[in-house]
């Protein structure tokens, strides 16, 4: 942005003026087609996991790109606004990626109790799942047996 007083050239402004409305209709139809496609690939056919996730996300990304580029005019307007959106998305990807990497590479028992790690639970009453701490911060009285004191989930299938 060498000359601070004219960030968008006059030609660009003129070009924006002369876009016909038909491009919006075309994009709208494309969005509807992709919506139908994503419903079909999720409910109409069976795609094995985890690919079904990727297909769904890919279609969502395409739809989002269409909205951002054409409805929101990123296709026409210059670099800085594109850079803003791209930067936000890159940092969001960083946040999500590294956080879920933590869960994926952790010592499995320090993840929340789920279907994958519950088989590592030792037999007997469930003493590893944290009890729900009731509002007010005071722990409930110790009761006999595997207490349902405030919501410790009973392990499905029981101990064995």
């Amino acid at each position: 942005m060498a000359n601070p007083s004219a960030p968008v050239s006059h030609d660009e402004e003129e070009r924006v003026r002369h876009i016909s409305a038909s491009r919006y209709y075309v994009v709208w139809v494309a969005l509807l087609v992709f919506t139908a496609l994503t419903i079909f690939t999720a409910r109409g056919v069976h795609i094995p996991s985890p690919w079904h996730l990727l297909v769904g996300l890919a279609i969502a990304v395409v739809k989002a790109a269409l909205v951002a580029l054409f409805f929101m005019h990123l296709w026409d307007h210059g670099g800085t606004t594109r850079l803003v959106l791209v930067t936000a998305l890159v940092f969001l990807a960083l946040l999500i990626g590294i956080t879920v990497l933590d869960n994926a590479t952790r010592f499995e028992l320090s993840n929340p109790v789920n279907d994958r790690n519950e088989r590592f639970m030792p037999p007997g009453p469930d003493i590893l799942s944290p009890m729900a701490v009731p509002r007010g911060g005071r722990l409930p009285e110790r009761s006999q047996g595997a207490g349902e004191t405030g919501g410790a989930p009973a392990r499905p299938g029981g101990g064995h």
Partner: protein
Amino acid sequence: MRTEAEVTHGGEGVPHLAHHYSNLEMQAHAARLGMWLFLATEVLLFGGLFTAYVVYRYTFSDTFVAASKLVETHYGAINTVVLITSSLTVALAHHFVEHRQSRKAALLLAASVFAGLVFLGIKAIEYTHHIEAGELPGRYYSYEGLQAHGAAMFWSLYFLMTGLHGIHVIIGMGVLAVIAFRTWRGAYDDGYSTPVELSGLYWHLVDLIWIFLFPLFYLI
């Protein structure tokens, strides 16, 4: 670094031009950049919730798949079409303002507000169904049909994310309604259409977020 002077003191006599900008193009560009920066913050605001979603989907994959079958796909599909169409009408409205057809533009903006209303109505129906079935967040979860690890978490995320999205829909509707009214009164034309453009950008963001919420909660 010295002070030669040109007596270009912006703002004298040019309508809508603020005193500290030298021309309208610069001001419009600044407004657009400011709005995009704000949209980036909204992306990151929802991004925190998406982070939670990804973490818990990774942790509870099968439960999430089972729970998403309980969310009514047909309502979600209708809402998606509604929002996409409202994005179209908003984009067209800005187009028509730039081509000096303000009345058409105002009607299109009003249609977008109506679409938002339809969206919220359908979500209200969905919420009612979920509340009745006991598919509620966190410790209020009581749906007997799915008692597995992470079921309550799915619904916590569902209500938090669609709820925050719904709040943004309401805000967007309010903004668009005000702009629609002013467009009808002829406040904007090809020389100055920035408010229409900026409120359109906000509405498109609302649509963008839904484009991701729909598959994540309804489909996969």
